[in-house]
């Protein structure tokens, strides 16, 4: 709190921290602006600049040599184009599956009137969201692995044989399941806010006019949740295409998505320029989804993100 003391000049009579006309309240936000400029804007800008430099192994700092060769390489190699396509498809599939799994959960949370029960459900969601992804994936791997709990159960029931376990991970399916696990809380929190904001009397009116419960839900509640569905899906899409840990552990590096390629180029090949190119493409994809998300009306939905 000393920070605030130091940045708040006291003696001006009409000014001060609480009053709207204070011209010094700017000082409150200056430290964070400076921090973000130095450690966020400049580094990301550096990556953008580097992506236009010719490839030079081990060279990190950007140079004045401008070329498009990295982008041409990216867009002419099927290897990288497929990775980008895979990332996008993965993001769309995960957004859809997460939506289907999250909607009933969000609905129940939104409609639970008992305050204690309601808080308990929200705490469960929040705790799952805040818990380190590596730990949650460890659990997923124990459940879904070749010798995992599900395969042990199937083996015990005599449905599979020892040498042919059901492949639930180290493939696309495993990555989807892992990403749904990751994105679920974000989707739930977004949807709860929207569903809670729907006036219950609308559904009651539909019911009073003779609509069945199911019809009232599909014709009134669900369409009215559309803003939340849209913004939640965009958020989940952006989070999914950005994840490194889930494809790495659940895909066993067999599902090559953009974040995996970035790490391989940079950490294993020291190809900073090409790594930066992939990073820029991923960054733009994710930022694009977020920009639409903000436009769609994040204001009407909840969530800490």
């Amino acid at each position: 709190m000393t920070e605030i003391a130091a940045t708040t000049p006291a003696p001006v009579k009409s000014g001060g921290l609480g009053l709207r006309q204070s011209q010094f309240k700017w000082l409150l936000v200056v430290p964070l602006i400076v921090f973000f400029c130095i450690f966020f804007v400049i580094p990301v800008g550096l990556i953008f600049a580097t992506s236009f430099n010719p490839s030079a192994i081990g060279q990190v700092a950007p140079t004045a040599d401008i070329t498009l060769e990295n982008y041409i390489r990216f867009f002419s190699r099927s290897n990288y184009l497929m990775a980008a396509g895979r990332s996008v498809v993965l993001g769309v599939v995960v957004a859809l599956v997460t939506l289907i799994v999250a909607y009933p959960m969000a609905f129940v949370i939104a409609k639970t009137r008992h305050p204690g029960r309601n808080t308990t459900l929200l705490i469960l969601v929040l705790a799952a969201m805040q818990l380190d992804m590596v730990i949650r994936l460890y659990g997923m791997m124990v459940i879904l692995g070749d010798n995992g709990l599900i395969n042990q159960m199937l083996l015990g029931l005599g449905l599979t044989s020892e040498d042919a376990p059901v492949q639930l991970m180290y493939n696309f399916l495993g990555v989807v399941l892992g990403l749904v696990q990751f994105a679920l809380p974000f989707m739930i929190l977004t949807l709860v806010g929207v569903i809670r904001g729907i006036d219950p009397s609308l559904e009651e009116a539909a019911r009073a006019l003779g609509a069945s419960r199911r019809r009232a839900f599909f014709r009134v509640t669900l369409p009215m949740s559309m803003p939340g569905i849209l913004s939640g899906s965009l958020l989940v899409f952006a989070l999914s295409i950005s994840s490194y840990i889930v494809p790495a552990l659940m895909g066993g590096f067999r599902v090559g998505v953009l974040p995996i390629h970035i790490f391989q180029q940079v950490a294993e090949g020291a190809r900073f320029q090409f790594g930066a190119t992939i990073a820029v493409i991923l960054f733009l994809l994710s930022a694009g989804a977020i920009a639409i998300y903000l436009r769609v009306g994040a204001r009407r939905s909840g969530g800490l993100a």
Partner: protein
Amino acid sequence: MERHIPLPMLILAVLGFAFMLMPILVVVMAGLTAGEFLTFPPQGLSLRWVAAFLQSDKYLSSFFFSFRLAVMTMIVATILGTAAALFLSRTGMIGRGAMRAFFLSPVVLPGVVIGFALFAFFIATDMGISRTIWGLWIGHILYSTPYVIGTVGAALASYDTSLEEAARSLGASPWRAFRKVTLPNISQGIQAGSIFAFIVSFGQFEVSLFLSSPNSEPLPIAMYNSLRYQFEPSAAAAGIFAITLVTASVLLTNRLVNIRRLLERQQAGG
């Protein structure tokens, strides 16, 4: 249960919660198993893997490294985030929404890219902190501050500024009015925000990936490195400690601010 929720919805929701929480439960069971690894049905309980974790140099030092990093991150994120939230709640300037979105953006932008960008920046500028706790610290502050802004912003949205103005008109200096009136009113929001900052840093993986080294290895990275090759129940035991820490933090947050209301405020406040 609540009678106004249709049964199919309730069943789907229960299945969803099972999917969401099962992996966490499994980690707890794996860390407490008596066997060499978790089997179905379980082989009984023991504390052998917890003991193994407490004696393992690798996990224990990572655990404390992460803890130290999270505390360092929490302090700076709380100060920077609270000040920024105060400004955002008090300014009427155009572009306030854009500035808020800018400050919150690291949470949703790809962590690997940000980590890589910082890594390249540290090397290119010759700062010499690319694979040290200081580099990690900067990356984690970037990812934790948004949570402080969100939580303190929510507390400020429900705080009536006329209280502070009343104190000012009664002759209190701006600093005194802030310290004696505003601060007590939002202090629980600040505490909750700092807890969020702590947990986010403690569980951070993506940003840490490029910024860590074997000498400065946070717990998620250490667990990841061992998980790539084999399942060690002692990693699950480390997970139990992390799960306990996070659950305790969320419960504590709920004591400080009403979580239900916090999430609703987020919606109202945008």
